[in-house]
Every structure is written in structure tokens, then in C-alpha cells.
């Protein structure tokens, strides 16, 4: 090919790509879709690297999606004057991260552990492999990956279409209405408005999700499907083993001067009923507090945070997350934690 023809092809490519991507971006914005960040291994690692901030400057949060939805990080930071480092991962147990932090002698800070019993007392969680991948990535990340992360952050903060969870090629294909294969249990496909992620790893529901009961019902159906799948209950030995690990990890962190608090975040409706039946408080929650000798906050014990109705039974909507966070800070202080840089609430 003559060089001239290659130039023409190159120019055409440039025009087509820029036009198509710009049109796609404008279309998504016209639909009211907001910026979202890829809450993958790189973002998790970025937060994991920050756990060494002094105890009077930051609190680390571990657990599952409830921690991510229910803790409003902006509210937390503005009231306490401290950073909130969110390390919780959807559909996972906090134990691997707790273990990791316990083994890290440089971590001596404040730690809040979210207890969602079905995940906490489980040997394998739906997204446990993802959490392991995050942790491995943190340990092995290279200078090149760190630089790529910064560039990616810059781009993600500008373009709506760079939403890997819902707008990548694979995610778009997953939404195609193709009949499922008999016997295959794939990953659930959540509506896009259910879980958007900010750069500080807070999850939030969009306004549309909060008002659209059809979308809420889609998520409820996913919970119901998950609950209907057969599971093998933990044996006494396995439960004891989990509790022993928690006890040992907590002791290591406390021995270094770290502070730990357990929080049972809100759920509602049939989800809460099922959790209460499956994991009676006295056999699970109370035992954790007893063996670790740590303070704990069970949401139902505090009227200020006991009344929430979760849109899909399991997570708080953004406005409730703000109220929950404000009250949680007060309750945590009652439990003996201090926030030296805390502002007075007007």
C-alpha cells in the first residue's frame, strides 16, 4: 500500500474512533449515568497501602458490601477529621484481610470489622477468590502498575464509559438475553444502578434504584436465589476454628496497640429474619465479642440506627448511610474510641 493510502486509513480510523467514543460517552451521560471507578485489585491495593497512617489519622474498615454501602466516607471524614480506609469487598469474609493485617507488624491503627454472619462464618465466600486476587496484587504490584493506576484514575474521573463493571465489552455482552444453560450457576448480574463505586471505594445506589421498585426486586430476586441454593452448614469444629483464628488475629493487633471494634450493620425484612434464624446472635455475635474481648455494635441495640429499611433488604440507601454514619460515630465514641480531630456536629 502506498503510504498515502495508509495515511487515509489512519485518519479515517482516528475520526471513526473519536466520533464513536464521543457519541457513546454523550449517550451515556444523557441517560444520567455517572462516573464510576473500577473497584478491582489496583484500587483495593491503593487503599491497602494506606493502612499505616497513625491511629489518630485513620480508621480501616474491613468486611463485605454492607460496610461499603452503609459507611458514608465523606460524612465520616468530615466529622471525625480522620481518613476512612475502606478495604471491605462485596461477598467476602473479613477474615483473610484481618489475618493479613494481623501478620503485618506495621499495622497498629484502628480497625472496624463488619459482621455479616453468613459471610463471616463461611469457609468459602462467593467472591473470596477476588479478594485473594486483590491481596496478591497488592503484594506483587510493580512500579509500572502503580503508574498505570494513576493514569487510569485520571481517565476514569473524566469518562463515564470507563465503567468496567457495567460498560465493558464483556459486561455489555452479559446483558444479552441469552437463555441460560441448564445446570450452570453463573455470577449474578446486578442492575447497573445498584452498585456504583467511588474512588474511596464507597458503594452507593443511584437515585433511580432507590425509587424504582422493579430494580430493587431484581436484587431481591438475586438474594432469594442465593438463599435457595443448598449450602453445607459449618461443623462445630469449623466454627471453633474460625473463632480461634479471629481471636488470635485480634490479639496480635491489640498487642501492638491497635484498636478493634465489631459492627453488625443493618439489614431488614426477610433477609434479616433469615439471618437471625440461621445465625442466632447468642451463638455467633456474642461469642465473637466474648472471645476477642472487643467492643461491638449490634445495630438493633441502638434506636438511632435500628430503624432503617433497606431497599433490597441488605444495604442502606445513600441518605440513610449518612444518618447511619453520623450516629455510628457517636456510638463508637461511647464505646471508648476517641477522635482527636473530631468536629462538633452543628
Amino acid at each position, binding site marked *: *500500500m502506498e*503510504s498515502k*493510502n*495508509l*495515511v*487515509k*486509513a*489512519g*485518519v*479515517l*480510523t482516528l475520526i*471513526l*474512533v473519536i466520533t*464513536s*467514543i464521543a457519541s457513546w460517552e454523550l449517550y451515556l451521560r444523557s441517560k444520567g449515568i455517572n462516573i464510576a471507578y*473500577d473497584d478491582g485489585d*489496583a484500587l483495593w491495593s491503593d487503599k491497602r497501602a494506606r493502612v499505616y497512617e497513625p491511629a489518630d489519622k485513620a480508621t480501616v474498615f474491613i468486611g463485605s458490601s454492607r460496610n461499603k454501602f452503609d459507611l458514608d466516607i465523606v460524612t465520616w471524614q468530615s466529622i471525625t477529621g480522620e481518613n476512612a480506609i475502606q478495604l471491605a469487598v462485596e461477598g467476602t469474609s473479613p477474615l483473610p484481610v484481618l489475618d493479613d493485617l494481623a501478620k503485618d507488624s506495621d499495622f497498629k491503627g484502628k480497625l472496624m470489622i463488619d459482621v455479616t454472619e453468613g459471610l463471616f462464618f463461611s469457609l468459602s465466600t462467593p467472591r473470596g477468590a477476588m479478594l485473594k486476587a486483590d491481596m496478591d496484587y497488592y503484594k506483587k504490584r*510493580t*512500579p*509500572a*502498575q502503580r*503508574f*498505570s493506576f494513576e*493514569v*487510569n484514575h485520571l*481517565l476514569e474521573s473524566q469518562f463515564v*464509559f*470507563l465503567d*468496567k463493571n457495567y*460498560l*465493558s*465489552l*464483556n459486561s*455489555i*455482552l*452479559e446483558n*444479552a438475553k*441469552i*437463555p*441460560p*444453560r*441448564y*445446570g*450452570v450457576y*453463573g455470577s449474578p448480574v446486578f442492575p447497573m444502578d445498584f452498585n456504583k463505586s467511588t474512588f474511596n471505594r464507597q458503594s452507593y445506589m443511584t437515585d433511580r434504584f432507590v425509587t424504582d421498585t422493579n430494580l430493587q426486586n431484581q436484587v431481591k430476586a438475586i438474594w432469594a436465589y442465593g438463599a435457595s441454593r443448598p449450602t453445607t452448614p459449618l461443623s462445630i469444629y469449623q466454627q471453633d476454628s474460625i473463632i480461634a483464628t479471629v481471636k488470635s488475629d485480634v490479639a496480635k493487633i491489640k498487642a501492638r496497640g491497635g484498636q478493634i471494634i465489631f459492627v453488625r450493620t443493618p439489614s431488614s425484612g426477610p433477609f434479616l429474619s433469615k439471618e437471625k434464624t440461621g445465625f442466632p446472635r447468642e451463638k455467633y455475635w456474642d461469642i465473637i465479642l466474648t472471645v476477642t474481648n472487643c467492643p461491638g455494635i449490634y445495630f438493633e441495640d441502638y434506636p438511632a440506627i435500628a430503624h432503617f429499611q433497606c431497599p433490597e433488604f441488605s444495604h442502606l440507601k445513600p441518605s440513610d448511610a449518612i444518618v447511619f454514619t453520623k450516629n455510628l460515630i457517636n456510638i463508637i465514641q461511647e464505646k471508648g474510641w476517641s477522635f482527636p480531630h473530631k468536629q462538633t456536629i452543628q
Partner: protein
Amino acid sequence: MVFNSYTFIVFFIVMLVLHNLPLAWKVKKINLLIASYIFYAAWNPPFVLLLWLATVVDFFVGRALYTQPNRHKRKLLLVISLCGNLGMLFFFKYGGFLLENFTHVVNAIGINYHPAKPNIILPAGISFYTFTTLCYTIDMYKKRSKPVKSMLDFALFVTFFPHLVAGPIVRPPQLVPQFETPRTANQKQMLQGLLLITLGLFMKVVLADSMLSTPANVVFDAKGPLSTLDAWMGVLAFSGQIFFDFAGYSTCAIGVASCLGFVLPENFLYPYAAIGFSDFWRRWHITLSAWLRDYLYIPLGGNRSGKFRTYINLMITMLLGGLWHGANWTFVVWGALHGFYLMVEKFIQDFKIRLKPKPELVQPAVVMQGFMAPRFLKKVQSSNFLLALFTFFLVNVTWVFFRSPDFTSAWRMLTSMFYHVPKGAVLLSTLTIIKVSVIVVCMVAFHWMMRNTRIVNVANKMPWWLLGLVWSAMLMLIILSQESSSTFIYFQF
């Protein structure tokens, strides 16, 4: 640093600007060398020391090998170079493997020995740059080419970032002369380079990572027997993944070099259109198979010492070729299978020669790519295609050993592929099966259509608007797939 990362895009733009500034050629070469070290150090900085060590030792040993008149001293120098290069490779790549096997052996004979498991990190691309430096010193020993005059040129030959971590494996005469005169890409080289980079990234990011890696991982990571359909889909997905991953890297490397004004050798020529295994190895990882041929198979005697010895040499070459890919017996079996296929092919070829008709009946000479097909079949396009499919089928069987972490998994996979497993697990969704099927069918058809040509030639013949459409489609899919920074499979080799 990997080509499919934002870091590389920024790095490459900076390099292009620097390389096109009105600077002295020596300054540009120094820029390229520093950039190559940064490219490598961006993965793990301390391992740059290994590169320096290999470069300095082989530069001086290579020169001494060429000039040293004393035969014994030359042999000693060669041994020093081989020990240095292979010693480093063995320590980092095979240290754990050798210790593990040694432990098994001594325990088997009743000695209770349980050493601590060594925690050795494998430097990226060590197998590639070790082969690059090895061929230089062997060439110097055999006086096949002249020693590189300047340390700068030699360092750049070893470290030039497009080929550094995953090939193509270059020989000194292919690259060193290119450093001797000033080079920048002309408009055509630049655009062809950008087109090849786009194609390579499309293969890696869209096809290998986005579409095929998950089904391959799901199937090969399964802990129990699978349904036949799932097992085959997993193997076919891996077949596509390994090709698109590695050929994608090579295509990017050639494209990047082209944008800087350099030419790297081709590494893949539509291997899934191969008719027979000698043809396959002329099309798959060409620079490695050529390396093994020239520096292992031929020095072993090649086909000059009788048929039996030829078979043995073929097998040794492929066994070591398998081991080159990874420190695991599964790779050795992968190599052994390829060696066996090549031996059978050679046997058929020899048998055909014995049955060769008398000279007056011989048909006009035709250039044949493979050996397995009887002559009359080779004239029939559809039959050739069936032979290519049969070769592809056998290649897929070998990939089972290549991808499986151990023999138990490999055997379980083969059982699932070739026997009906009554309660075999079904793992892949309808969409995944559609994706794998469409991509693999298109891949094989594309390889067949392209088997006697080159992508650049095809691009040259296309109308500019059609090329623009294809190019933009690839670029858009790369952007939309949003897969970045995953490493290439061959980095671990």
C-alpha cells in the same frame, strides 16, 4: 512493563518524541538503552542487575572467543559463558524444580530429606534474553559472525525493549547492523507499526484476555470431572488464548520496533493452518524453533547420523524445548508429544521416499509445507484443510499438558474430552460457549485463508476505507473491553 498498559502508552509516546528529536545517533541509542532498562525495571528494579551482568560478561567473553587463537582457551571461555548464562537460568527457573525432584528421589531411596521450599522469584523474560546472549557467544565461538564492536550496541541488542521479555528471539546479525546507522521510521513504517500495535493489542486485550481467558481458567481450574462439551470448550479457549496472547505480544513488539525504524523477525505465521508438525513449528514461535534447530538439533547431529539418531535428536530437542517453557514435568510431556508427532511425521516422510515412483513418473516439483499429506491429497484444497484440522486437533491435545498444573488435572481433562463422564460438571454459560465457538472457528478459518500471505501484504491490498473500518473496529473494541495491564502468558517463560 507490558504493552497493554497505560504506563507503556506514556512511555512509548515519550520514546517516539525522543527518538525523533534532532539528536546524535549515539545519544538516541543511549536513550533507547536507558528506556529499555526502565521498561524492564518497571517490573522489578533489582533484576536489571542480572541483565547488566549477562551483557557485560557476554560482550567480553564473546570478543575473546572470536580473537582467542588457542583452542583450549576458547573452549574454556565458551564453558564460562554457558555456565554463566545457563547457571543463571537454572538457578532462577529450575532451582526449585530440581530441588523438588531431588527430594523425591532421595526420599524414594529411603533418605529422609525435606529441605525448605526455596522462595525464588523468576525474573521476567529470563529465558528469552538468556537465549539471545547464548546465541551470540556460540556464534562467536563458531565464528559465524563478527563480534559487536561497541558495548553500547551489544547492550542495546540484548536489552532493546520491544523484544526483551518475550521475544521474538533475535540473532546478532538481525539486529546489531541496524544499530550501526541512524534510523527513524518513515511515514509508512510508522503507520504500519501503529497498525501492527493495534492488531497485537486487539489479539491480546480483546480476544485473549476479555473473551478466552476466563473460560480457559474456569475449565482448567475445575477440581472434578467435566462434561465433554465444557472440557473441549476450555481446551479450545486456551488454544485461542495462548495464540492470541503470544502472537499478540510478538505483533506489538514488531509494531513498536517499526515505529522506531527497526525491523524484528516474524514469530508467528498462522500456526493453526499448519499441515503437520514440522509445518506447525515453522509457524509457531518461529524464532524459538529456529534457535532450537540451529543451536541444539543441528549440533546434536540433526539428520546427518542416520534415521534412528534423527528420531532421537528430534525428541531431545522437543523435550528441552518443552522444559524451556516451564519447570514442570507437564511441559516435558508437552514437548515429548510434539517430539513424538514429529517422529511419526518423519517416519511417514521416509516411508514415502521409499515408495517414490521412478524419475520419469515424478510430478513437477511443488513446494510443500507439510510432510504428512500424501502427494495426491496435497493438490486438493479441501483435503489439505482436513489435514490442517487434524493437526489442530492434535495440537489441542498437547495444550492440555501445557496448561494443566499437574498430571492429575491433565488426565482428568483428557478423560473428560474423550470419554463420556456421566456426572461431569457443566461450568460454562451459553454465552461463553458461543463466544469461544465463534472466535475459534473464525481463528482457524482466518489462519487457513492467510496461511500463504502476511497481514501487512493483505493490508496493503485493501482499499483504504476498508482498512480504516477494520482498524477503527479493532481500536474501539480494545477501548471498550477495558482490560489492561494483565501480563502475557509467555512472560513466565
